[in-house]
């Protein structure tokens, strides 16, 4: 009779099992974009869950599928989490059908967020295109909450049209810690705001690079223009942080979908400094 005893290893964590959360509130922020307030069902997790701005969750519905979604509430907010979801495909469409009281499932947090701790004492510029404001809003709210720790905040937000500007009801609060400027690609005649590309906002605020960090999230088309302009303004690559989007399945460096050259967007990213990705031509596509 063969011996089946093997020395047992330390208990392994099963990364693929999600935790249940309840939807407390749903708001439509823009056409096809909804904002969810959640809380974990498990009281211990609800109490102890911690993360950094810019980190994401693997969000799923049982029988539908799973996708990476950034946490858009600040780490300073305890007991609940917020997500902002654009309807794009299988899971995100199903998420849009959720009502208060419904369940969803999450695992994480995953990836590296914005290094806000290292930015203490600095001015912060947030540059967000479209739904890219979601992860940045976590960082903005965090910086607003810890107002004394940071210098001036500048939020630059571009969207397709005025309807698609996100979190508009929070700009007043943000303005108490700095400046908020928006711009849209196109607008109806009664629109009083700016029309054009987001670099126009950089020209408008004309930021000085000294003691300033820049946090960027948006569609890839935005990157080259914004980065080009920041370079002209004299910003150092090590002070510019960008959140990258890639196809993701596992969130833990095992499925290979998110790889850009030699880094895993889900592990070393999604937030990376421009210095970290220098020379990788495919990173900013």
């Amino acid at each position, binding site marked *: 009779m063969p011996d089946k005893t093997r020395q047992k290893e330390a208990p392994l964590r099963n990364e693929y099992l999600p935790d249940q959360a309840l939807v407390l509130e749903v708001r439509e922020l823009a056409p096809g974009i909804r904002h969810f307030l959640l809380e974990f069902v498990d009281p211990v997790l609800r109490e102890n869950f911690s993360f950094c701005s810019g980190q994401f969750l693997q969000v799923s519905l049982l029988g*539908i599928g799973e996708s990476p979604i950034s946490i858009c509430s600040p780490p300073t907010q305890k007991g609940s989490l917020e997500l902002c979801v654009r309807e794009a495909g299988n899971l995100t469409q199903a998420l849009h059908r959720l009502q208060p009281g419904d369940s969803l499932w999450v695992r994480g947090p995953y990836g590296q967020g914005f290094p806000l701790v290292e930015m203490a004492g600095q001015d912060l510029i947030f540059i967000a295109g479209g739904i890219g404001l979601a992860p940045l809003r976590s960082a903005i709210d965090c910086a607003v909450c810890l107002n004394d720790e940071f210098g001036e905040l500048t939020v630059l937000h571009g969207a397709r049209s005025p309807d698609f500007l996100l979190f508009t009801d929070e700009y007043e609060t943000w303005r108490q810690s700095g400046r908020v400027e928006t711009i849209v690609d196109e607008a109806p005649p009664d629109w009083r705001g700016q029309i054009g590309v987001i670099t126009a906002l950089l020209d408008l605020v004309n930021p000085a690079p000294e003691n300033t960090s820049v946090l960027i999230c948006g569609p890839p088309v935005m990157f080259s223009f914004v980065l080009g302009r920041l370079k002209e303004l004299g910003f150092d690559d090590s002070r510019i942080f960008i959140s990258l989007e890639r196809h993701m399945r596992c969130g833990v460096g095992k499925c290979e979908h998110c790889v850009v050259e030699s880094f895993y967007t889900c592990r070393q990213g999604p937030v990376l400094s421009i210095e970290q990705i220098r020379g990788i031509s495919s990173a900013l596509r």
Partner: protein
Amino acid sequence: MGNLSPASGERLRIGIFSLTSDAGCQLEFLNLADDLLALVRAVDIVHFPMARTFNQNGPFDIAFVDGVPARPDELDLLQEVRRSTKVLAALGSCSSFGGVPAAQHFHDLGDLKKYVYRGMEDLDTLEVFPISRYVRVDLQLRGCPASKWEIMETVTALIAGRLPQLKAYPQCVDCKILENRCLLLEGLPCLGPITRAGCGVVCPSVGVPCDGCRGPTEEPNLTSAIEILTRGTTYPDLIRKFQKFCSLAPEYQEMFDRWRGLV
């Protein structure tokens, strides 16, 4: 595809329609066997002329349409179905790509009427096109016949509120996972590398090369595939293979044009 959201507890209303075809795809529903019994318990198949005496009209949650519109009244039916359903699924390669009937594009229509429909030369037939030429199609369940797996995935996904997860990758992936003998490596004309998976690689699994009845993968490398395939098959035979089931697939047209230039 539209955002289908079945109100919870409500049963899906399904219609199964047949235009001109050999009805083999409809038969696949009956071939679901045990699954079919479970299916009729879970959803309402309210229109299915092959299996029901009394058939209801829309609205439908899902309409499966097989065949191609070959007569004006079939075109009317197709448009009526589109109006009355949330999700319209082309069932099989005829409705997806014109199927076998679309071979008419490679022959003279007058000749066809003379030889195939002898004595019915004044038949009022439409040229064969996939149904997507006439109406918006949400899903293509390709294959000749359509695959049972895809039918079940479509129904169970839509019940659950998921977009059906149909495979878009080549047959070879599933064929290798089954550890079949590779027929292409043995010199047989297997279209697996450029044909969509989803049927369970039924042909190569029994030693028969894939005939491409499920149509091309996305961005197939046809130039290289032809070079490899013609090592064991003549070019004309190969072209005939491509023309058999999915001759109207957009991905094939450049290859056919080049062929027409040759003959």
